[in-house]
């Protein structure tokens, strides 16, 4: 029977630095495996859309600019993503990854949550064709056939 069994703990703590991390003034480096923002390498993508099928949150959209020349644009909804990395595992071509540096993803507007990956000209071409506001379902006309 002891009165005050935690006396040792509390007296030591009086002379130790508090264990609280003073975020955002002190930021610890995130571990390498942290599942942060999605990264996409368009050069490796083949347009198989397995990632679209397997995403539990319907957060990925692959839009085909030119299937033969392998030009794809991925629209990724950061706010829908659950950061589960199923897409990373499902992709057979290593086109997807999850960054461990970009994880402070809060934003003040919805536009920031819709990220497009791909070559600049492809994105521009698609955006010119798409007739909708970001966040709503896109209406993409069929990609023109190229020689």
């Amino acid at each position, binding site marked *: *029977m*002891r*009165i*005050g*069994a*935690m006396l040792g*703990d*509390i007296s030591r703590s009086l002379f130790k630095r508090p*264990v609280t991390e003073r975020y955002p003034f002190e930021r610890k480096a995130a*571990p*390498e*495996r*942290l*599942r942060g923002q999605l990264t996409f390498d368009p050069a490796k993508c083949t347009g198989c859309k397995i990632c679209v*099928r*397997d*995403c*539990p*949150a319907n957060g990925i959209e692959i839009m085909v600019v030119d299937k033969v020349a392998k030009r794809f644009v991925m629209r990724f909804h950061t706010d829908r993503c*659950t*950061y*589960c*990395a*199923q897409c*990373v*595992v*499902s992709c057979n071509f290593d086109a997807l990854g*999850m960054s461990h540096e970009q994880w402070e993803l809060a934003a003040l507007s919805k536009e920031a949550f819709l990220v497009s990956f791909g070559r600049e000209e492809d994105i521009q071409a698609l955006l010119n064709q798409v007739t909708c506001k970001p966040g709503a379902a896109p209406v993409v006309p069929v990609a023109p056939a190229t020689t």
Partner: protein
Amino acid sequence: MDTQQEPRKTFVVPIGPQHPALKEPGHFEITVDGEIVTAATVRLGYVHRGIEKGVEQRNWAQAMYMLERICGICSHVHATAYALGVEALAGVQAPPRAQAIRVLVAELERVHSHLLWLGVAAHEGGFDTLFMYSWRDREMIMDVLEGLTGNRVNYSCNVLGGVKFDVDDTQADAIRRAVDFLEPRTHHYLKVVTTDETLIGRTRNVGKMTFLEAETLGTVGPTARASGVPRDIRVDSPYAAYPDFPVKTITATAGDLEAKFVVRIQELFESYRVIREILDKLPAGDLAVRVKPRVPPGETVSRVEAPRGELFYFLKSAGGPNPDRVKVRTPSLCNWGSVLATAPGHKLADVPMLIAGIDPCFSCNDRLVTVRRRSSAETWTWAKLRQYGIEYYR
């Protein structure tokens, strides 16, 4: 719980749905006479999200992530149970390395869950210092899990057929360091819990449940083991890598709150031992085998030991890309009866600790549907119930 009694002047204290004692909503009506509890009823369902129905509209790979998010504290065991079930239906066996990593993460999760519970139970009793210290130490495990899996909760460790990531030497060292730090701290907490006079005053002989009562009420997990019922799925029907890394069943005989504290803390020691053993003897091999997107038809049952008790999954496949039916029965659902049975006779001040004693996870257990019909009583088949649900929302 639905009897007609003559209207008496009873003083009912509602604990919940919003109450500082509860971390999640649930409604307890505690009938008190002064400070003594005379009756208790519970009403659940406040966190029902329709996950079982939602899973039917997603394919097998997507469903795992929904099920993983049934609970934040025991998310990995949900995913493991589901993955084991699907692998059984598909007729594949995950490779031994994957099973060992699954068990490793499961035991790490058990450590984090029990430390969390220690803090929460201490907080319910007004012992904030123990709460702060146990959660401070829990941060070690959270950091280890973040480094190993990529996230502090919802580890997303499983894929159908195996695991996503490997355990390399740096990870193993980090885990060993964390476990080495935690073991003496856990000894210290065991000493605090069993010797501190004020804490003993709140936990000894409070909520005493005998062996017979625990068996009859159908309790599972540490709640049952604290009364001497040696029920542990890891020992009774080992799954994943538990046949290779056996665990000892920890029981106590007193059956009161103090016994529940002691059982959970001693389970921590077992977990540390198993974690070290797995790290030393991790089998070599692949991380996953391929499971086809369409799972062959069949039904299977998969049971795992969550930190709270026996987690039961029933999976039914009709051969398509989506699961036909997933039924989840979580351990907290079995343990509510013990709270309601032991509460009368105790003081009101004991009730939050009794509720916390079974380590309730309200989010886990909102799967139950109670249909009260006084006029007629009929039995519905599963197909009829499902049709009713579909038409209700049309």
